[in-house]
């Protein structure tokens, strides 16, 4: 076990993947000499050369479109989109090409591509640097969508994503890049399935299902609740397409109450799908309707307003109270 920050853990995971498979190539803006604006690819170009860690021209559609060709030629591209808000120039290539090629060619062509996207707010950034676009991608058939919340998962899940034969959108909670955790660098790819949620804290009263940047927030809410004698179960979803409904169902079977929290807008978000499915699966076990908290249906605001926009422990606890009041 080594203690590492999340950003460093993803860096170490990328290094492992590159060492074990010479077909893994990294592509993106400023990822080489600079090591990425968040330094997630730091040192990799030095180590593996400019052919495997490619500083691309400033064009996201170009990055993903050429990665499609690289993948067709037998490579495993790992593309970095510098910030969430710059995934959209690449959206057409991702949705119309990356996601559909396997199906279009009846399985002849595979797209073992990983698209890393630092996402979410909380860093006081300017416009387009704090968005949570995961629902757009999870809504698209053909894409797998995952997100890590801690260093151990950062290291393991990036390797699993790269090893996947399908395209994986890999969301990294940028405001947690500096949070440290224990990482088992030897953990095998099979040590925990990529598409499985995890119960981070077991509890009995209300289940909080969340992911990425809000896992830490939910844990903070759980400790506050515990002081008041309320026992929260915190689930880190980890995977948004597919979603691990079995784990959610099991948890709701124990608590009877579910609050889903994400930074993305609530309207038509991941929480909406979970609320619908859990209502179907757990109708007679639910003590209260599934509640959702998250971003409002407004554009991500300027930095001075982001604390108001982002769900915090208080907003989670308020939802817990509302759930328990029913």
């Amino acid at each position, binding site marked *: 076990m080594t203690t590492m920050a999340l950003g460093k853990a993803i860096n170490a995971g990328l290094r492992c993947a590159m060492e074990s498979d010479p*077909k893994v190539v990294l592509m993106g*803006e*400023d990822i*080489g*000499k*600079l*090591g990425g*604006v968040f330094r997630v690819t730091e040192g990799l170009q030095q180590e593996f050369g*400019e*052919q495997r860690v*490619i*500083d691309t*021209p*400033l*064009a996201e*559609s*170009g990055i993903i479109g050429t990665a499609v060709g690289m993948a067709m*030629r*037998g490579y495993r591209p790992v593309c970095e989109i510098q910030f969430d*808000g*710059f995934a*959209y*120039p690449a959206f057409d290539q991702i949705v119309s090409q990356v996601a559909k090629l396997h199906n279009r060619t009846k399985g*002849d062509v*595979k797209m073992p591509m990983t698209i890393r996207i630092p996402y979410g707010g909380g860093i*006081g*950034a*300017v*416009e*387009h*640097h704090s968005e949570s676009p995961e629902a757009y991608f999870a809504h698209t058939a053909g894409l797998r969508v995952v997100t890590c919340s801690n260093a151990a998962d950062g290291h393991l899940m990036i390797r699993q994503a790269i090893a996947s034969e399908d395209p994986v959108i890999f969301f990294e909670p940028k405001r947690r890049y500096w949070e440290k955790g224990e990482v088992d660098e030897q953990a095998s790819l099979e040590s925990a399935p990529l598409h499985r949620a995890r119960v981070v804290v077991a509890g009995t009263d209300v289940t909080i299902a969340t992911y990425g940047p809000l896992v830490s927030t939910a844990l903070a809410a759980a400790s506050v609740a515990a002081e008041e004698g309320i026992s929260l179960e915190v689930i880190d979803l980890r995977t948004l397409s597919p979603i691990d409904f079995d784990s959610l169902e099991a948890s709701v079977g124990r608590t009877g109450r579910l609050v889903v929290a994400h930074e993305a807008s609530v*309207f038509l978000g991941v929480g909406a799908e979970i609320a619908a499915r859990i209502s179907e699966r757990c109708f007679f076990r639910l003590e209260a309707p599934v509640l959702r908290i998250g971003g*409002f*249906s*407004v*554009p991500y*605001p*300027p*930095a*001075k*307003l982001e604390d*108001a*926009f982002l769900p915090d422990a*208080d*907003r989670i606890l*308020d939802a817990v109270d509302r759930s328990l009041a029913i």
Partner: protein
Amino acid sequence: MTTVMARPDVPANPVPTPGQVDAQGLTPDQDLVQLIGPDGRRTSGSPFAALVADIGPEELRSIYRDLVVVRRIDAEATALQRQGQLGLWAPLLGQEAAQVGSARALGADDFVFASYREHGVAYCRGVDPTMMMRFWRGSTQSGWNPYEFGMTTPAIVVGSQALHATGYAMGIQHDGASSAAVAYFGDGATSQGDLSEAFGFAATFLAPVVFFCQNNQWAISEPVHLQSHLAIAKRGEGFGIPSIRVDGNDVLAVCAVTRHALARAYSGQGPTLIEAVTFRMGPHTTSDDPSRYRAPAEEEEWKAKDPLARVRALLEAEGLIDAAYLEQVTTSADETARSLRSGCIGTVEPLPMSLFDQVYAEPHPLIEEERASYAAYLERLEDQSS
């Protein structure tokens, strides 16, 4: 089939490195419009010289004043960021002449579509520097009304504004008006599809748009040759857009070529691409550390081409500088800095409930519902804490 193995008998294609590409296929300074020599003397040989022949002593002095003030705005903003008053700042240090020279050529009816670094252009359009600060402070997404100054607020998505400028120019054309749209963008932006599309539309429709590229040699850590092996100006030519390379650190040359491009636009001759060759002397933004990717020697080399020093040398050569004038310039810069500092620190921050304002132009029930439920939540929170 899944994997095609690399053939061991075929050497991998070498990736071009800086040394292999001679400065974008050109020898330095070749076909670069320049009107102030390094010795501070105005040159008259260039056909562009006539376009700024009207710029006499008073205007030169006022241009220099603008350059100094703009540099001071930039320095003050950087200081404010270091002091925690701004979240971020994108310095224009080194690009003052490219911005002031081009902006001073514009007419009141022209419309600027900016990127995020055009503080000097904004200043020339009459934007109060305090308004510029509010965006970078994180207090608003838009520090001024674009219609009031004929200039958009920062476009963060690189390259997006070039298409908007082109469309605005198409509107000017449909109106039969004789003004122009001007798109400012960087060298990195030219790699975006949006730029190619803008060039294509503008050329097809002969739109009255000026594409003003500040080639400051870097896109964060990526040197310009990573975007283009040819001079950026050559890209315009490929689309049939007449293109000019200008010394971006020569304020008169920049002004002259911009006047030329505007005259073409006003008279129905269509778009022009200007590549202003300049240098980003500072970091990409206050979050950036250029020592990670570029050599101090390059910075030194460009220091010798400082755009302010050039005009100062011109003023001196023509005997236009005296102590009283220099004091005026300093006072002007000091006052601007003082005012933007107090304006920035005195910003009235937006209230949480303003999150729901101006999302749509017409009422939307979802917004109203969320506004009400958030207000109710804030009340509950208040009750609990009291």
